[in-house]
């Protein structure tokens, strides 16, 4: 079974490829959706195309399916339209699969299942990374705000933090937002630490 993976994210495509190889599939090609990718796919003649539903190039790809003379057999999106749960999961995960007509759905399902799991795992990884990044940025803001308070009001670090926290609670705002407001005000007043 020849599998092509069309994905804007090279990292996610690699993660999916690794998973498929571990599961015993060995004829896998990564085709980034840029430039003449449609011609590459046409030459490759894959049995299954796993495609990132977020790529703007999907319409170009479907046009190839509509006009290509090289593809003698029709190609359908998702092989089993009756399996709505699975299709829903796939769209939520951002995965599409185009399968050459005549392929048994039992052979396609494990590939798609695996793609959905890997796409979801990648999304979870990315949101964790995003959270960690935000947390780090907030820590830096709070540190700068503490430094301003320590300098301008002669507070200890613990007291400066307590003041920030109290202000945030009184105004029902996040400590990082209060810190940002303080930094902005201090910059306007020309009291950069």
């Amino acid at each position, binding site marked *: 079974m020849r599998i092509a993976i069309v994905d804007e994210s090279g990292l996610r495509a690699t993660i999916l490829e690794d998973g498929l190889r571990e599961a015993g599939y060995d004829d896998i090609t990564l085709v980034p959706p840029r430039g003449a990718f449609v011609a590459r796919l046409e030459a490759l003649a894959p049995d299954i195309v796993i495609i990132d*539903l*977020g*790529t*703007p*190039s*999907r*319409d*170009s*790809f*479907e*046009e190839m399916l*509509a006009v290509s003379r090289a593809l003698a057999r029709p190609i*359908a*999106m*998702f092989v089993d*339209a009756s399996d*709505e749960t699975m*299709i*829903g999961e796939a*769209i*939520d995960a951002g995965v*599409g699969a185009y399968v050459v007509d005549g392929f048994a759905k039992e052979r396609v399902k494990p590939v798609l299942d695996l793609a959905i799991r890997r796409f979801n795992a990648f999304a979870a990884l990315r949101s964790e990374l995003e959270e960690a990044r935000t947390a780090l940025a907030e820590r830096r803001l709070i540190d700068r705000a503490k430094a301003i308070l320590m300098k301008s009001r002669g507070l200890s670090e613990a007291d400066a933090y307590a003041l920030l926290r109290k202000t945030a609670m009184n105004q029902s705002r996040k400590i990082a937002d209060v810190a940002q407001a303080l930094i902005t005000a201090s910059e306007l007043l020309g009291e950069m630490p």
Partner: protein
Amino acid sequence: MTPLSIAFVPLTDAAVLVAARERGFAAAEDIDLTLVRTTSWATVRDRLVYGQVQAAHMLAPLAVAVTLGLSQQPAAIAAPFKLNVNGNALTLAADFAAALDPVSRNRITDPEATAHDFAGAIGLHRRKPIIGVVHRFSSHALMLRYWLGYAGVDPDRDVQLRVLPPSLMVEALRAREIDGFLVGEPWSSVAVDSGLGEIAAVGASIWRRGVEKLLAMREDWAEANAALVDRLLRALDRAARWCDDPANRSDLAELLARPDYVAQPAALIERALGGQIWLRRDEAPVEVPDFLLFHREAANFPWRSQGLWIYSQFVRWGFTAASPDAEAAAARVFRSDLYRRALAGSGTPMPGASMKLEGALGAPLGVGSDRGTLTLGPDRFFDGRVFDPSRIEEYLAGFAR
């Protein structure tokens, strides 16, 4: 509030949906509207067909194609509301446009001559011209085919139509992968502003009142949620009226410019909203008052005859075989009955008929309406042909292809 999700593609003509959410028209109907930004029409279609969203901003021909089973999983689509009329432009690379009338304004005002000039330029160009279109089943592609066909150009043989997403058109033009493109705004204005191309035709100069984007939903969902459909249509009707008001133009342009919507400069977006179109970067803009309509002249009314015009073009270009079943299915996509039901109590003038001759009006005409006056704008095709929805076969026989 009732939650409702609508998928859209980042384009200026998603304006009515954006205004409905951001200016409170949806909330006033107790709808918690979520807009799902989507980068390809294929994914808009899948989200709608497989029920991830309840409605979608959709190319009118794509709604007909999905219903006829021409675009992946077939599903009966109901379109009870048009989101806009007109709004497209054909942008050509300067070297290709050099074969047209040197006075850019003349290209817009005389589409017949421009079509012939385009035809003459094909053989002189360094390659078979490659023109970007957003989708096989787009209004843009059908209008380009219609316009080129008039000048004896076979769009499947004499030019290459390449499907590209709107957001990649400008880059493809810069890389000289294509010689021009026909796309919704703001992408032509972005290309002109970068000095990469010149606008050589606008949708309104090919068909004065061309069908463009629809609000599409699955027919079974629309039937099962009639009250909610009515509320949504009332919200969109008010949002469309708001979008058409010149007083709101700059506010609307700022809204659309936001990164979660079109993510392009407000000044470029505003050109289409105000009908002030820069054809070339270093010239004064020209006035195209009917470049893009959101509400006036019953712009949102889904004329069944327009679904049939799309069907006629599908037959003309061999996308589908002529059959009474396909014809009936295409006519059913445009749900003027749902529009009437939802807006019966509103102040929006309602046409008396649901079908009309398309392209018969050379000048504005007051027509029968159940309340107030309704003036329909001129809706001529540039070649003067008239589409009679009850005589499709005859209409098609009039074309060489």
